[in-house]
């Protein structure tokens, strides 16, 4: 396996920034502006993505949209199924979801199970007008009938590969790399 600095790069910092810009425009176009939308990032790297979209939307429309953070740990379908429990962090949604179009944000869309959990978690907070999904990478291999509304890049992958999204907020640099599964 390649060490991470030698792994093939799928997106560099510029590519990520362009994808965020395009997705912001698509969100605004689809929802007729920023009036009724709210962004919700899924921990961990979905949060950074959602914050960047929020900044971009502010730049374009001069509107600050509501922003929330979702920890889906408690809604996972694999708790106690042989994996160790991930660290539980706070969910922070301080606005009402009613009559809002919620844009869920995550870094990589893979099996769709995380998104299923996120939708369940979201519904416990209220009844949004709609839920849309924005992801930086769609790598295929869905195990549930879930599709993204906004995609940074489609990357057909072998199931054994691992896609790693590195973002400045968490990792100190912006890039998306593809690696062999380590375990």
């Amino acid at each position, binding site marked *: 396996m390649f060490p991470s600095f030698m792994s093939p790069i799928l997106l560099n910092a510029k590519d990520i920034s362009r994808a965020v810009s395009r997705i912001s425009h698509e969100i605004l176009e689809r929802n007729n502006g920023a009036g009724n939308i709210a962004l919700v990032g899924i921990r961990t790297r979905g949060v950074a993505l959602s914050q960047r979209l929020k900044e971009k939307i502010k730049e374009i429309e001069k509107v600050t949209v509501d922003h929330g953070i979702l*920890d889906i740990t*408690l*809604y996972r379908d694999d*708790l*106690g*199924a*042989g*994996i*160790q*429990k*991930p*660290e*539980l*962090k*706070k*969910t*922070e949604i301080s606005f009402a979801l009613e009559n809002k179009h919620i844009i869920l944000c995550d870094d990589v869309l893979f099996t769709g199970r995380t998104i299923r959990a996120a939708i*369940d*978690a979201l519904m*416990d*907070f*209220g009844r949004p007008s709609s839920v849309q999904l924005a992801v930086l990478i769609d790598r295929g291999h869905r195990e549930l009938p879930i599709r993204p509304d906004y995609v940074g890049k489609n990357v057909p992958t072998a199931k054994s590969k691992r896609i790693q999204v590195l973002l400045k907020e968490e990792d100190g640099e912006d890039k998306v790399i593809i690696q062999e599964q380590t375990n």
Partner: protein
Amino acid sequence: MLLSTKNILSTKELTKQDIQQILDTADSFKEISTRSIKKVPTLRGKTIINLFFEPSTRTRTSFEIAGKRLSADVINISGSTSSAVKGENIIDTARNLEAMAPDILVVRHQCSGVPALLSQFVDSPIINAGDGAHEHPSQALLDLLTIRSHRGNLEGLKVAIVGDITHSRVARSNIKAMQTMGMKVRVVGPPPLIPVGLESLGIEVSHNLTTAIEDVDVVMILRIQLERQNQGLLSSLREYSNYFCLTAKALAKARDDILIIHPGPVNRGIEIALDVMESPRSLILNQVTNGVAIRMALFYLLLGEGNANPN
């Protein structure tokens, strides 16, 4: 991400890392109790049995609510309505309950050591919800959570525990947990209510309330256990009150930001004055709120893979 212990019997068994993890997890759980739908599906299909042989409102309700907010099924059994009245011994009671495949047993008993005894006979994890004058670990954890959320961290904080130290399981659990977290503990009370030799455990002993709380970050007031006052340890409640009731006067020289906690139930006017109890420095109701989060964290962490009932 798992605790180093299968049961929560005493705070002595918990490492610093365990306590840190329980507090961090509980911190995240607090938010759920503020939602309009106060429930997450995490422990769906798990069964929790509350086995309480001693009266309790706060603790039993807290464990029950914690379980229900995580979607577990919670069954409450109290001593007076169980087969214990027919003479069944406690080990048999526990083994019979276990035959119905619960995932956790929460046990309170008037005798010290009962939860530890039962843990040798059943496979499910056991949480000690108070055993005699021994320990009440979930109370100590919720006290730490309350202090930490007001002070940011625990290391180096000074605490005075006031009251009947000898008979208090809350004091025992707290002293150990606080020392593990690097806090300094001082106990305050009349000599008959303080065990001999505490100094050797690194605990300061004082018999003067006013001077003992001058420099502390937290003062924890214990309930005078009226049911134990026929033992001749105190000459009268009024005398105890004169010396050890936490009043505005006793607090005069204390820090302005001193935190006041009490495990409840409170004997108003005996161990704490009414105005002090109602003052903003008193965190008694915060403790109760935090209790639910702590118990949710314990259920969540104990029901992890590797800790789950192998049956």
